[in-house]
C-alpha cells in the first residue's frame, strides 16, 4: 500500500488513485474534478485537483469533502499553493494533500499554505520530508497554520 505523511506521521494510504476512465469509481477511489462534478451524491468522496483546476466549484461543498488532493505534476508549477491556501481560508477542514512531483524543500511552504498531508511521487524520502516540515520556526505572513501575521504577534 502506498505511504504518505499525514499530520507529521508516516501512514498507509487508504485511498485509491483516480481513474478518469471509470464510470463508477469505487467509494475509496479519488475522483477527478469532472467525475466529482457529475456525481449527485458527493458526500464522503475525495477529489483530486490538477493545475488549472481552481477550487471554486468545491467551495459550496466543503463540509462534505473528507479529502482534497492537489496534484503537482511539475514542482515548478506553484498554482497548487494558492489552491490549498484558498480552500483553508474558505473553511475546508478535511485532509488537504499534496501529491506528485513537489520536492522536499517545498513542504514547509505547503504546510504553511494549509496542507496537512504529503504524498511525494518518490516514497523513499518520506522521513527526510518529515524533517523539512519545520525548516522554519517563525514567519511573517498570516497563513492557515498561523492565522496572525507576525506584526500582530510581535511583543
Amino acid at each position, binding site marked *: 500500500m502506498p505511504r504518505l505523511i499525514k499530520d507529521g506521521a508516516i501512514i498507509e494510504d487508504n485511498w485509491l488513485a483516480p481513474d478518469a476512465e471509470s464510470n463508477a469509481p469505487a467509494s475509496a477511489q479519488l475522483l477527478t474534478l469532472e467525475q466529482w462534478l457529475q456525481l449527485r451524491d458527493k458526500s464522503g468522496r475525495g477529489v483530486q485537483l490538477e*493545475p488549472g483546476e*481552481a477550487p471554486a466549484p468545491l467551495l459550496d461543498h466543503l463540509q462534505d469533502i473528507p479529502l482534497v488532493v492537489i496534484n503537482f505534476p511539475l*514542482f*515548478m*508549477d*506553484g*498554482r497548487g*499553493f*494558492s*489552491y490549498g*491556501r*484558498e480552500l483553508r*481560508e*474558505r473553511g475546508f477542514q478535511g485532509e488537504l494533500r499534496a501529491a506528485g512531483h513537489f*520536492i522536499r*524543500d*517545498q513542504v*514547509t*511552504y*505547503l504546510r*504553511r*499554505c494549509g496542507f496537512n498531508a504529503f504524498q511525494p511521487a518518490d516514497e523513499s524520502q518520506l522521513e527526510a520530508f518529515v524533517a523539512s516540515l519545520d*525548516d*522554519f*520556526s*517563525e*514567519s*511573517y*505572513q*498570516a*497563513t492557515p497554520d498561523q*492565522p*496572525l*501575521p*507576525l*506584526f*500582530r504577534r*510581535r511583543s
Partner: protein
Amino acid sequence: MYVYDEYDQKIVDERVAQYRDQTERFLAGKLTDAEFLPLRLQNGLYVQRLAPMLRIAVPYGLLNSTQLRKIAQITRDYDKGYAHISTRQNIQLNWPELAEVPDLLAELATVQMHAIQTSGNCIRNTTTDQFAGVAADELEDPRPYCEIIRQWSTLHPEFAFLPRKFKIAVCGSAEDRAAIHAHDIGLELVANGAGEVGFKVLVGGGLGRTPVIGQAICEWLEKKHLLTYLEAILRVYNQHGRRDNKYKARIKILVKAMGTDAFREAVEQEWVHLKEGPTTLTEEEISRACGFFVAPDYRELDAEEQNSQLQSQCDAEPIFGNWVKRNTREHRVAGYRAVTISLKATGYAPGDITDAQLDLMADLADQYTFGEIRSTHQQNLVLADVETAQLYSLWQQLQGAGLATANIGYLTDMICCPGGDYCSLANAKSLPVAEAIQARFDDLDYLYDLGPLELNISGCMNACGHHHIGHIGILGVDKKGQEFYQVCLGGSQSKEASIAKILGPSFKQEDMPDVIEKILDTFLGLRQEQETFLDTYRRVGIDPFKERVYAPAN
C-alpha cells in the same frame, strides 16, 4: 533605517541553515540540477559563464556603514576584491565558490543582510527612490511601506513558485525616481480628495522582451489594505499567469490578455475574501515601521552662511564647483545636500566598486552623514545627508579614490548590465560598448551641453540594463552567432513614462560610438533653446534620427 529584532534575525538565520543543507545535498548528489536550480536562485545564486554570481539583497537600496564594511571584507575573502551595484539596487559578486556560499550568507546574517529572493520566480527586492526621506518633492517617505512589503514578501509560502519573477517599486514623490511604471506592481503614495494619503496601484508594467507601461487598477487604496490588495493581485497572477512559455509568463502579458478592467475585476473578487482579514495593517504596525525612518539629528545650520562659503569654494576651484552642480542636490533640511557618488568613471565597468572604495564609502558615511549609504537603480551610491560646509572636504577624499566623476544624469552616467562578459543569459557584451561610448564622449563640457541624457545598455532581451526606458537604449542581439546592437530612442522612466522605439537595423560593436555621435549631432542640430534630448525627440519624432544614422556614406 530598519533594525532587525529577534524574529527577523531568526528567519534569516534559519534560511541560512536551510540553504546550507540544500547546498550540501546538492554537492552530495541528493538534489538534481533541476531541483537545486530554483532553490539556489531564490537565494540569489546564478551559475554564470565564469563562476557563480551571487546577488545580495539591499532592501530598497539602504545600507549602513557596518554592512558596507562587511561587503568589502566578503569581496576580499570570497571574491576578487570588487562588487557590482545592480539595477535593482542590489549588490552582486561575480566570483564566489558555490560551496562557500552558505558561509558567506552566514557572515551577511551577522550584519542583518541576506540574499533571499534576489532571483527566481518569486517576489524580488522592493525598490524605491534613492532620495527617500530627504527629497524636497516628497509627499511621504516610501521606505516604511517598502519594509512592510519586504517582510510580507519574504518567504511568502504561497508565492515562491510564481509563473515568473515579480518586482514591486514604491514612489512617494512628485518626480518618479523609482521607475514605478516599469514594474509588475508600481505603488505611488497619493492624497485623495480629503487629503488622506494612500496608494495608487499600477500593474503590468515591465521591460524584458515585451516592454509595457503599467496601468492603474486602483486610483487610491487606503494604507491599511496594502498587503491584502497585493495578496489578491498575486493570487490572481499565480493562478492565471501563463506557465507554458517563460517569455509570456510575466503579469503584464496576463493583464494585456484579460484587459485592465477584467483584471481589476478578478483582483476585486479575490480581495473580497482577504479584505479586513488578519493581514490588514494595523495603525501600530504602520507607526512601528515609520519609527525606523524618522529624520536623523540634523544640526540647525545657517544655510546662508553655508551657501556663501560653498560659493567661494566653488569659485576658487571650478572642478569642485562643477561636481557640486552635477552630483549634489537640494535637501529638504536647510544647510544639507544629498550627494551622488558616480560609479561611472570611464574605464571601469558601470556600477563596479572595489573593496577599498567600499571601505572608504563606509568611513565617509560615518564621517559626513549618519552612517547610511544608499544604492541607486542607476548603479551609483548616495550619501543623503551631507552638511554643505563639508562638501569640499568630502569631495577631496572622493577624488583621491577615483569616485568624484561629475557626470550624474549625463550621457556617461549610463545604466549597463554585466552583459556577455559575465552573464550566461546575455546575447552580447555590454561593458565594451559602454566603455567605447564613455571614451568617445569624455569631454565634460560637451556632455553638459547635451544636458540630461539617460543611456541604458542591456546585453539581452531580459533588459536588466533597462534599455527600453533610456532616452537612448542599446540592446545586444545575436545574429547568427555574431554580436550586434540595436538602438532605440525616446524611452523614459518618469511619470510620463514611455517605451523607446527601435531606430532600425542593428549595428556592429565597433560602429556604436559613431552611431551615438550621429544621434547626438542630429539632436544638437534640431534642438530649440534649452530642450533636453527627450524634449527634442518628442517634438520631432524618430525620423530625423533614422535618416541621419542610416544615410548612405558619401
